[in-house]
Structure formats: C-alpha cells, structure tokens
C-alpha cells in the first residue's frame, strides 16, 4: 500500500476516496471501518505467491 500526499483535487463531496490499483477502482465515502474491510477483501483475493 502506498499513501501519496496530494494537493486539493476537489473531491470533497465523494471523499475520502480509496483507489485500488492496478485496476484503479475507486471506493468513495470511505471511513476507517470501511477502509479496513476493503483492505481485507482486496488482500484476500491476492495470490500469496505473487510478488507485490
């Protein structure tokens, strides 16, 4: 996971946004709980043998 600090991207209305790469799927209106659950969902799908 990489966290990048950016300037204002005018996405306040739909933010916080989490983008899952490499597909660039956007998950909007996230909070701590949703982010944790999303992280678990995404990592569960990853092949443990694949290099990240």
């Amino acid at each position, binding site marked *: 996971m990489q966290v990048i600090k950016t300037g204002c991207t005018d*996405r306040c*209305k*739909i933010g916080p946004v989490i983008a899952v790469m490499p*597909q*660039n*799927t*956007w*998950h*909007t*209106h996230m909070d701590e709980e949703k982010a944790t659950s999303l992280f678990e969902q995404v990592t569960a799908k990853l092949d443990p043998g694949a290099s990240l």
Partner: protein
Amino acid sequence: MMVIRKAFVTDSEDIASCLLLAMEEIVFRLMGEENSEKALAFMCYFAERENNQYSWQNCWVVEEAGSVVAAVNVYNGAHLHALRQPVIDYIKNKFNRSVTPEDETRDGEYYIDSLGVHPAHRGKGIGTGLLQFLIDEYVTRRNQPLGLLVEEGNLAAKRLYEKLSFKSSGRKVLLLEKHLEHLQIIR
C-alpha cells in the same frame, strides 16, 4: 458509498439503459423513429458486443449498493471510424438508412462519448465523481488529453465541465442537427 470500476460484459444491459439516458434522442435520429423499446434493444446490441463505440469494453460504471447507477463510454479518438463502422452498418442493414455523422472526436484525445446517471440517483455528485475519476484515469495516470462535446446553450453542463478544468478548444461540431462545442483537458 459508490464504487467506480471498469465494466464487465455482464454489465451490458445496465450500460445500455444508462447510456440511453444521455443519447436516446440521437438513437431515435439514427434509427429514424422514436421508439424507446427499439432504442434500448439497439443499445443492448452494441453494449454486449466488442469493438464498437458503445461496447462494454469502452465503459466504466458506478455501482451503489451492488447496482449499477451510472455508466460512461470513453475511447481513443484515433479509433472513432473503426468503432463507428459497425453502428453505421447495423443502421443500414436493420433500418435501411445511410447515416454519415460528422466526426465527434479525432486522433490525439480520449473521448467521453456519453455519460448517464440513473434518475433516482441524480443530485448526489455521481456524475461529477465519475468525471473526476476519468480525469484521474486518463489525464493524470495515462497522460492523455481528455475531450467531450457539450451542447451549445447547455450552460449548467458547461459550468460543471469548466469547474473540473475542461477548457474550450474552439472546435465546433454539428452532430445529427445538434450544435456542440468541444472541451478538453490537457495535462
């Protein structure tokens, strides 16, 4: 919470109904008749097939609570003629009409063809969020110009696009009797 993702072939029916919200009038003109049922069948035909303007392959969708509430089709302007030919051929075979639309895009940009938000989900920033996503995907990540056409006189739409930093390129297009202005974001 909404999820914006690349469309799958299984989204085809939802894509057809969402895109039709934006382009029913154009489909009526292409078919030469005002029939909503036929227009939906027309869009479904193309959405579920590959290599045409309205194919699921060119679409992104917005999902809310597991349902598709908005869709947009975006493609490389350089591929317009190839993607449009199946549509022109279908209209010729099925409706016996020869249509020669003016080019809505050209080489050198990714083009937002149509974007539709389900009426029950309007006013919630879904369309704006989807456009912000497209700017991120095409302009920021792929470093490509992103263009669209807005109907002249549709000031509300134009204001929204300008707020998102689309700028007039000065190009005008007359598409099936509609006067349109070309807007673009170049990184």
